[in-house]
């Protein structure tokens, strides 16, 4: 069902699941032998953080699918208002997400 892809979705999903289980199983295997405060664990965390930060910024700034039909400034305004509410509410993630999403909805409604 993926328009641009040449491979089957079930294959992608299965491979992604296997790639995920590898970490869980290896973690179970190493349990007790690996301390959370080791440089390798720090490195893994940094790679994950950088990768996801890159993905999140790209998804907001250059989205694909439905969101790609919205003007940039809608998404920026929504993200910014979520961030402002998050900061003012002493880091309430749920409230920030709620307000940010509502702002995007409101902007598309009034357009």
């Amino acid at each position: 069902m993926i328009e641009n892809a040449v491979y089957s979705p079930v294959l992608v999903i299965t491979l992604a699941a296997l790639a995920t289980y590898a970490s869980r199983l290896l973690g179970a295997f190493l349990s007790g032998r690996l301390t959370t405060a080791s440089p390798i664990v720090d490195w893994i965390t940094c790679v994950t953080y950088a990768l996801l930060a890159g993905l999140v910024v790209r998804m907001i700034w250059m989205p694909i699918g439905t969101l790609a039909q919205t003007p940039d400034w809608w998404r920026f305004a929504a993200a910014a208002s979520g961030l402002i509410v998050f900061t003012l509410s002493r880091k309430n993630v749920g409230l920030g997400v709620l307000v940010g999403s509502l702002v995007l909805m409101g902007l598309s409604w009034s357009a």
Partner: protein
Amino acid sequence: MPMLVMGASFVGFGSMLHALNWTVWEALFSSLSTWALPGQIAMADMAYSGAPLMAIVLSVAFINARLLPLAASLLPHIRQPGVPVWKYYAVSMLVAATSWVGTMRRLPDLAPDQRLSYLTGYGLLLYGSSLIATVIGFYLSGQVPQHITLALVFLNPLYFMLLFLFDLHNRSKVLALVFGAILGPMLFRVAPDWSLIITGLAGGTAAWALGQTKWGKKGLDRD
């Protein structure tokens, strides 16, 4: 509370897959088999833009490598003499960021022989609700007006953005976020298929290396 937030983000995932023209079975299969949202989102996003399989699998592997230390630090708490080893491997399937946060706090207070059951129950509850939420999100996205669909699809990017800004005490983590946020969109223009992996490896390694220096360690707690 963690169930509510987790439910909302899986609703967002279901909506996203509907918007990207996947089927409900594919959406459900992804949550059922992977059950680690950031990786699922990256997978769907990259598959939509036609990235090579290898690029998708490597990106998901790097994103979910964070589960390795989570599993390794959680499982020693449930170790009990007489419990067959396969049970630990089985329960490691239920290790996710949410279940880790929720059980890590409680496990030390429980009697050692109750811990495995506690983790299993807690994990299965979250896992089950995520599956339901995925399906709800998928169908919701097809039923409601476009304005609401937009908001649903926007839930996850916003959620992860704020989640990252929640804990900014560790200098190398902050650097990793900054490098990732700059490199991600930049590399996407040059090499969209491989941009995520390069962003993670280059940005993450640079942030980690700076964090290992005197400057990076000065006056900051590691977590």
